């Protein structure tokens, strides 16, 4: 088989969908139907291989798999299914995965219709000139309304849905048909196998034995073991130690050719050296120009991560390094806090990304950590003209040294059923949003375009949106610009001592409410002490909110005889154990949960 014939039998595609619309289930079904994994070995949602992903029902880390499909015509086809992450925090990764494909299967839940993320992903796919094959899922459910959904897709996205496959990823209904449609509807790749190598990194991960594994789409040329490759963005060179396919386990092969999707290893030390979106070429015969679209990932949200027990500093550092090796979007550097001692300032794509890293520290590395209030990066312009990109609220210069502060603004697209327009406009207004445009996509579906400060979005905006729209609302946002704003630093004092880990930057108009909320929350979670503990929120010298935790009054074993001292001792030991999970701030003991409790904004408050 010559190269042309070979790649004519390849289809590179992604599945794009809104969360819960059945992407992972469909991927599972495809894997099963093509016989890659025996049915008995099927784990639910095969591709989401981190426990966390399965639990949260979202894809965080990409998985790529090569399926061999025997078509009805008798020909064998290779389907490279490139999975995409499913959360707004990971949009860039999605776009690079899509760039590696010729087509995308758009899965729309026929019971739910088009959601904001569906749209956002479709736009990303259209940006990459992909052929989009719409598929209506969950057709087995009584509440499915395929005709209405088709109409919605046609109207909102402009895709012809007349022949859209109707499937149930859960039962397998219609999936055989869909596999045939992949062949007819998605174009085969092209590319010149004899041209200089031009390969797109759409994912990379770290392996203890192989070093970084680059997942790449070969657009032109070929690559084999022994080649010296070069990363176009950095110029870094590596000798290729292995190439192969992902099936989804690594299957080594001799050479990867234009049109193919596979992996490349080259003793690369960390994923940051093989960044998603970068172009790989051969050092001795480089391609003329890199593939378009490479972006250096920007951390949008920062917080401090501190070991819950000071002596675990090194262990936390090791763990963060290991996580970073596998996650180019995550960054950290050492910092110190008066309250928490030695720790790290960490940068994330968003709050979900942050929660995931913290959970992985706790689960995979068995480390208890304290996270400080997350913050976006503020641009502080000092009176002497110096500009500081402020990651940590406690480093805010003195008021008299500040000319003004700018905060990052995002453009947000919020899609909601029209019943909730009032509630969401109200929410956005409370979060200092400015509506730019309101579009009726259908008579019942509204797309709101908002200009919002990022720091209003990162805390709990998404949760609030979900709860106010009974789960029907969805959100997409991207960074737009910095804008001058009236911001203040809110400090929290426990027993009159400042605890810098709780400091946060808030808009002046929200400061009072936020301060009161934090004080109330802390009163709930901080236990009684042997003395009264005042909790105060302050802006500069001005106290804006206060709560008091009463001193405890009674904690005594009245009856201590009969000689059973062991039982009393156990009781006291248990009490001591409980105290160990506390963090001491001056004279006040604060449980770890306090740090997360103040982040969760409670709409009822």
């Amino acid at each position, binding site marked *: 088989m010559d190269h042309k014939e070979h790649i004519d039998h390849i289809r590179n595609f992604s599945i794009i969908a809104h969360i819960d619309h059945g992407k992972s289930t469909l991927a599972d079904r495809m894997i099963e139907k093509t016989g890659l994994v025996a049915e008995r070995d099927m784990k639910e949602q095969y591709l989401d291989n981190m426990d966390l992903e399965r639990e949260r029902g979202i894809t965080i880390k990409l998985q790529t798999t090569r399926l061999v499909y025997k078509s009805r015509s008798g020909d064998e086809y290779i389907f490279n299914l490139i999975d995409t992450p499913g959360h707004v925090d990971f949009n860039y990764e999605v776009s690079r995965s899509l760039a590696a494909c010729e087509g995308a299967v758009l899965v729309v839940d026929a019971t739910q219709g088009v959601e904001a993320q569906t749209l956002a992903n479709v736009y990303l796919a259209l940006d990459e000139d992909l052929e989009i094959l719409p598929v209506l899922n969950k057709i087995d459910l009584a509440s499915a309304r395929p005709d209405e959904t088709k109409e919605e897709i046609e109207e909102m996205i402009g895709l012809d849905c007349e022949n859209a496959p109707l499937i149930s990823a859960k039962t397998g209904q219609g999936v055989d048909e869909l596999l045939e449609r992949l062949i007819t509807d998605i174009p085969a790749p092209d590319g010149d196998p004899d041209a200089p190598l031009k390969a797109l990194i759409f994912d990379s991960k770290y392996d203890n034995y192989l070093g970084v594994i680059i997942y790449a789409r070969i657009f032109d040329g070929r690559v084999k073991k022994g080649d010296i490759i070069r990363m176009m963005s950095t110029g870094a060179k590596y000798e290729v130690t292995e190439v192969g396919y992902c099936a989804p386990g690594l299957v080594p092969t001799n050479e990867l050719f234009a049109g193919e999707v596979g992996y490349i290893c080259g003793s690369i030390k960390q994923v940051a050296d093989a960044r998603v979106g970068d172009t790989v070429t051969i050092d001795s015969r480089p391609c003329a120009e890199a593939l378009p679209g490479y972006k250096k990932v920007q951390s949008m949200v920062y917080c401090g991560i501190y070991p819950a027990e000071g002596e675990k500093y090194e262990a936390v550092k090791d763990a963060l390094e290991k996580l970073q090796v596998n996650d180019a979007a995550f960054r950290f550097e050492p910092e110190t806090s008066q309250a928490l001692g030695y720790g790290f300032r960490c940068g994330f794509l968003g709050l979900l990304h942050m929660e995931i890293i913290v959970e992985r520290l706790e689960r995979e590395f068995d480390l208890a950590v304290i996270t400080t209030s997350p913050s976006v990066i503020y641009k502080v312009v000092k009176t002497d003209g110096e500009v500081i990109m402020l990651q940590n609220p406690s480093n805010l210069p003195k008021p008299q040294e500040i000319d003004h502060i700018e905060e990052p603004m995002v453009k947000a697209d919020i899609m909601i059923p029209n019943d909730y327009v009032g509630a969401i406009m109200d929410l956005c207004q409370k979060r200092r949003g400015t509506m730019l445009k309101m579009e009726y996509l259908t008579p019942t579906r509204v797309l709101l375009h908002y200009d919002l400060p990022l720091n209003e979005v990162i805390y709990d905006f998404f949760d609030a949106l979900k709860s106010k729209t009974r789960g029907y609302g969805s959100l997409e946002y991207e960074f737009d610009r910095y804008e001058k704003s009236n911001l203040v630093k809110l400090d929290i004092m426990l027993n009159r001592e400042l605890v810098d880990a709780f400091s946060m930057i808030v808009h002046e108009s929200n400061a009072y409410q936020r301060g009161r909320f934090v004080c109330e929350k802390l009163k709930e979670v901080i236990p009684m002490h*042997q*003395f009264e503990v005042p909790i105060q929120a302050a802006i500069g010298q001005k106290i804006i909110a206060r709560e008091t935790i009463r001193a*405890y*009054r*009674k*904690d*005594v*074993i*009245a*009856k*201590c*005889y*009969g*000689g*059973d*001292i*062991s039982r*009393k*001792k156990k*009781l*006291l*030991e248990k*009490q*001591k154990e409980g*105290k160990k999970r506390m963090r001491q701030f001056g*004279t006040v003991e604060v449980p770890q949960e306090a740090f997360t409790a103040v982040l969760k904004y409670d709409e009822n408050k």
Partner: protein
Amino acid sequence: MSLGIYVHVPFCLSKCPYCDFYSVVKRDEDLKDKYTDRLVREIRESAGLPRSGRTRPDTLYLGGGTPSLLSAKHLDRIIGAVDEVFGSDEIKEFTMEVNPGSVDLKKLKDIRAAGVNRLSIGVQSFDDQVLRKLGRLHKAEDCLRVMDDGRKAGFGNISLDLMFGIEGQSFGSWSDSLRTAIELEPEHLSLYSLEFQEGTVFTRLLKEGKMKETDPEDDRRMYETAHDELERAGYKHYEISNFAREGLRSMHNMKYWSLQEYLGFGPGAHSYVKREDSGLGQRFYNRPDLEGYVTGQDVRVISEPNDISDDASEFMITALRLTEGVSKEEFRDMFGVGVWDFFGDVARLKFGSFVKTGHALEDEERIALTLKGFNVSNRILSIFV
């Protein structure tokens, strides 16, 4: 140091809903005979137990349960066995717990004649309503009578138990009970804040929401009032829950609070002895299993031998229950180093924070808790475990 002997008598006429001491409700005289048989055998066999000094006992304590349910004959056999194995001539304090309503003057005379010289009477309250709530079988008048009978029978050392912090118990009821108790002029008083122990009826009711815990503020007000009243009446508040006339503390219970040796006999009884080789502690106890006990099963459970930090920590958590607290010199004598050398700077700082807030005291000679500290003593004692 001399030895204390405790005998657990696991029989009751009825179970009190708050009590978690081991007892069975059986009016089976034959079972009491069998229990006494085994008890006598257990005491005789204990001659071979490891103990550092072959010291003679100076206290004997019959607790329960309801020891006054034993007949004079049972009592004589038990005392006889103790005398035979350990010698009873040095016993200075011989206490027996009795319940109002379950003993009359004749019975008290028998008890006195058997050698008992101290009574601990489970009065609990002089308010019939509170007594009913506590599931006690007696009434307030029984309490007055048993006190009177006790004196008539020749007991010059009587202790009364009272309870407070009970749902439905008013502050007035508590004050009245206190006043009545003071008027009766007992030598010793034990005042207990009601505790919800695992496995009791009260705890079940609490979990089911059918009972409420007393507001800690009210509970502590009752406690602090009692402290004031009793001190004014000439009693010394010498342990978290105990008050005594000068020189009339419970010698036996003092052993529990000062890491001295005691041997416990009977089902559910605990022992602490010092090993001959190291002088460090060894705890063991009998499973609370009367059936197994009388049928001759081995019910003894031997705990891991104490190391020096177990002993030190047990010493602290018991001795700090005493008003006089821990003598630094005594600690040094017992453990070879100073108390803060032993427990370290973190413990010292934490304890210091309680000194600052008035919960504890420290001077050259001793460390101790204050009354305010007694209220929250678990927080302070947990420094030392």
